């Protein structure tokens, strides 16, 4: 696999950092190399937050996104700030609430935040729903490895809810099974 740079960005509290970490762990379980970095503000909730994940078949030089191949934006602020940093040929997943009106051909919107709310009653699993969308949309890692990485990373009492969030995210792209 050639180098893939993924940036997951949103607001503090959406689980953006955890989602990035799970994706990197899933990539390693899938036999690739991966790095993960987190950027957050001084506040524990709110403020901007982002996670960079680099996945490659061989050694990773620079461990952050420099030319973003895939941007997952979960807030309007994140979309506005990082959309210009997406590489030519890159793609963007954005939450439906902050989707651009028209004319952005590389951007696809999905109801990530609303789905997370339906699954968890809040924003807790937003990042994991986004991982489901990303997996169904781009398939960067092995699907079983991703479920495995989610199950390993989240607290035991929230495991089922997070696996449900992952499935719900994938269904946003693929449609619900008949």
């Amino acid at each position, binding site marked *: 696999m050639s180098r893939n740079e993924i940036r997951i960005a949103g607001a503090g509290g959406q689980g953006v950092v955890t989602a990035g970490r799970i994706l*990197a762990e899933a990539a390693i379980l899938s036999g690739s190399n991966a*790095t993960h970095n*987190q950027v957050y503000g*001084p506040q524990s909730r709110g403020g901007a937050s982002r996670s960079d994940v680099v996945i490659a078949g061989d050694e990773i*030089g*620079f*461990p*952050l996104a420099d030319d973003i191949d895939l941007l997952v934006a979960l807030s309007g602020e994140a979309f506005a700030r990082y959309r210009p940093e997406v590489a030519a040929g890159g793609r963007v997943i954005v939450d439906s609430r902050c989707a651009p009106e028209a004319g952005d051909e590389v951007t696809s919107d999905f109801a990530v935040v609303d789905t997370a709310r339906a699954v968890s009653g809040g924003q807790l699993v937003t990042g994991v729903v986004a991982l489901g969308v990303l997996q169904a949309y781009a398939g960067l890692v092995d699907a079983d490895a991703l479920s495995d990485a989610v199950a390993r990373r989240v607290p035991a009492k929230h495991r089922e809810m997070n696996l449900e969030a992952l499935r719900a995210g994938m269904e946003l792209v693929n449609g619900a099974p008949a």
Partner: protein
Amino acid sequence: MSEARLVQGNEACARGALAAGCTFYGGYPITPSSEIAEHMVRLLPDAGGVFVQMEDEIASLAAVIGASLAGSKAMTATSGPGFSLMQEHIGFATMAEVPCVVVDVMRGGPSTGLPTSPSQGDVMQARWGTHGDHPAIVLAPSSVGEVFDLTVRAFNLAERFRTPVILIYDEVIGHTRESVRLPDQVEIIDRVRPAPDSVDFRPKAAGPNGVPPLPAFGDGHRFHVTGLSHDERGFPTDDGAVAGALLSRIHSKVADHEDEISAAETFMLDDAEVAFFAYGIVGRSAREAVLRVREAGIKAGLIRPTTLWPFPGRQVAVAAKQVDKVIVAEMNLGQLIGEVERAAAGQAEVVGHLRADGEPITPSELVGAVTAAGGGN
């Protein structure tokens, strides 16, 4: 080797410390270093060690110095604001010759600054933050694996030379997770202790390499520890000849082994016309930039110091004779660039690519910097 897993830089620091034999951690948590404390508090008790959260950073390093004198390998970790508070005791540990490791994970400053963002603004503080003439050993890793290796090295150098050693890296290195295999076994150096039955024990009489053997409190040797200038018996003196000789010996411990302590990795430098000088995360950006500009036919290379102090001036001087231009890229407004200029001594043009806005310097930026500088021309 353990199996490959995703490890954060700060976790690698804690695991490196344990591998090196650290049994005491005294600290006060501060972003972006807190994960070091979080891992130590979980791992140290099982390793037979002690973790103490102190009331502030002044007390933290005081506790570390006490633990080290009692025979433990001891460390603390902090960030810029706490590192400032530790400077007094770094001087004390230098003067009293107490081995210890101080980790500074750099964030934006001055003051509270940008608490969660990276910088490289403390590299001169690491050299000159404490007062008086003193040597400094400062190590700077660029990857998660290197954080582990250089943490081990920091303990080994501290024990060997009876001196504080500083490990310094930016927030990106501290918070980045990489897939690594950490070694199960590492080479460990322990401090030299005096023979238990040594008569007329002089705690500050130089042994081999100018380093006095250090007993642990409780071993049976009685000795006095002071930050005042002191004689070989460890007691204060204002005799200028004795004070001068003590300072010279403390200085020489590091100066006489400068070539061995100082280290820099070079990359594609053999035919380079332009060289980057970069450390920490910027060392990674520069390496990537070298590969990209070489594809465009520009002969670039990299000097990446892993020891900032003693400054690897010899390696810079050798490179400066060969290249036309050195681009110093650092996440501050110009700190090590002065040292590079001094070492280059006019043999190559030295220019800075400096950034201090809380964002890391990226490979794309450095590709732009080489192109703007006209390659090596």
